[in-house]
């Protein structure tokens, strides 16, 4: 297991290391192309296990169905402990994961904009991690769960109201085969 993790990390590092092609457009703007987009999965999923087009439509339909059932869980300001409602949502999610052993989940931890950016990334990390630990406690293998923090960088709601901030303090779950 540990070996796999190391190989996985090494692969990512190799991908990330690929030296970048830099094109200068002249004038004031210089183009810097970030490391191979190939190492980055499709924007917003934050997982390396996105369903591919080779999956048959039945699987795609099944995925759509389980994705629709995976409810976001929400947090209080500056908190990363799971509320009772969140635990229930995670129990439902774990049932789906335990039923279909091929399913994987990527947990995306998010924060509202009121904190500061760097701390929010750490907070989002903890929020995703809290859900991961709970799923593990419910019997889901750690290998099937990945986490990523989006901090306050990807708000779903952009108004400066408590109702809106509350929507952004969430774990979002992206399922894949």
């Amino acid at each position: 297991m540990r070996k796999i993790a190391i190989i996985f990390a090494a692969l990512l590092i190799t991908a990330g290391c690929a030296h970048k092609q830099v094109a200068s457009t002249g004038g004031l703007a210089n183009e810097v192309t970030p490391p191979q987009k190939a190492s980055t999965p499709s924007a917003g999923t934050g997982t390396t296990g996105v369903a591919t087009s080779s999956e048959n439509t039945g699987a795609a339909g099944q995925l759509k169905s389980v994705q629709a059932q995976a409810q976001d869980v929400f947090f209080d300001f500056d908190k990363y402990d799971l509320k009772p409602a969140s635990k229930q949502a995670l129990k439902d999610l774990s049932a789906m994961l335990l039923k279909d052993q091929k399913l994987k989940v990527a947990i995306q931890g998010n924060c509202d904009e009121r904190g500061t950016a760097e701390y929010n990334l750490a907070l989002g990390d903890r929020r995703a991690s809290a859900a991961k630990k709970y799923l593990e406690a419910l019997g889901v293998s750690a290998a099937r769960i990945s986490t990523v923090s989006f901090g306050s960088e990807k708000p779903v709601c952009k108004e400066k109201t408590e109702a809106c901030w509350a929507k952004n303090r969430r774990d979002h779950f992206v399922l894949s085969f």
Partner: protein
Amino acid sequence: MKKQRKSRLVFTLSSIFAFIIIAMIALAPMAQADNIQQIDIYAPGRPIPIAISPLAGLPGDEISSVVIQDLDATSVFTFLDPKGFSESPTEPFNQADWLPTQVVAVLKGTASISPEGDISATATLYDVQSGAVLFSKSYGASLGMLRSLAHDISSDVFKQLTGYAGPFKCKLSYISEKHGRKNIVIADWDAYHPKTLRFNERLLMPPKWGRDNKSLFYSAERGGAWGIYRLDIAHLKESLVFYRRGTSLIGDISPSGQILFSSSYQSSPNIYIINPEGNGGYGPPLKLTHTHGINVSPALSPDGRLIAYVSDRDGSPQIYVMNTDGSNITRVTFQGNYNTAPVWSPDGKRIAFAGRAGGGQNQIFTVKPDGSDLMQLTSYGNNEDPCFSPDGSMIAFSSDRNGVKSIYIMRSNGEGQRRIKTANGANAYGPRWSYN
């Protein structure tokens, strides 16, 4: 052929020699200026009136206007309207012309452009009360570097009058964001001459300067994890510093190239340090904090002995200081329940940070590392990302006080807050001035 090269070398050497002599002559009057009292920029009071006479010669007006722009941005000075000058730029300084104007000091000089486009200038700063020369220097720059030459003059004037070198010769880095897409921008100290590095990423954090000013370090989420990257600015080439699963965020870079960062790759976010190895890589991470909560944003003190960082070990994010081996943890902030983003003043006497204040908004504070003498510097809007200029005279920060997240500067006591100009229609935040 060989001979020609030699004679050119001799010519070069003799011009350097001549320059040294000129410089020595120029420096001579400075000795007598030592007893001129410097302005205490932290003492409350009205701005100091000075006169910047356009340098005589073709690019003189442009150079002087940049000098005025630089010095004006510090909010330390007011400038005498040129209509009030009774002395033309080409006339020699005459104390009697300036005594009635109340200005403390007068800058005069010359400027010219060679047929090849090289700019040269001289600048002399006079003390009006005594009539003494405070400094007199020559400057040179290639075509297109006019602002840079002007920044040199601004720096000399500011240093002479305040004792601080000012931020004028620094570069400024920040993030520019439009429609959620983020790019790194490198500009002059005052956001002029912006150069956009097109990352076009959604998950990219503001960069921090390497101590040699040749590289930027930043964190970005790619491939499912936040890693730390280094950009060689001259070659626009990126290399990987640290990448594991979880969230790894650059904190600070020591003078010897050690990387201080936070990472959740083992469990919860803790502070780590890695040492550079000769091959451009890094040694194994050394863990400095050991709590199950959040430890993030490490900043190394200027003397290299302490690390300021943020931890929620007592229940809410607060600033702490520890030794560089992780020992002797002491809490710095006690007021409020959300204090983050610490940076050290270059003299190590204060820590600036963003703290949640009344109204639930973040404000810029400074405090002594022992927790005493807390000062709130901002009060309108959300104010975050404080950063000192390398001479300690100023702080840059981000604020949304005018609706759009923009970059502001102020004196490090909070006076003279003003926005500096970044691209319209884009958020700008996370400013960092380069080292001197």
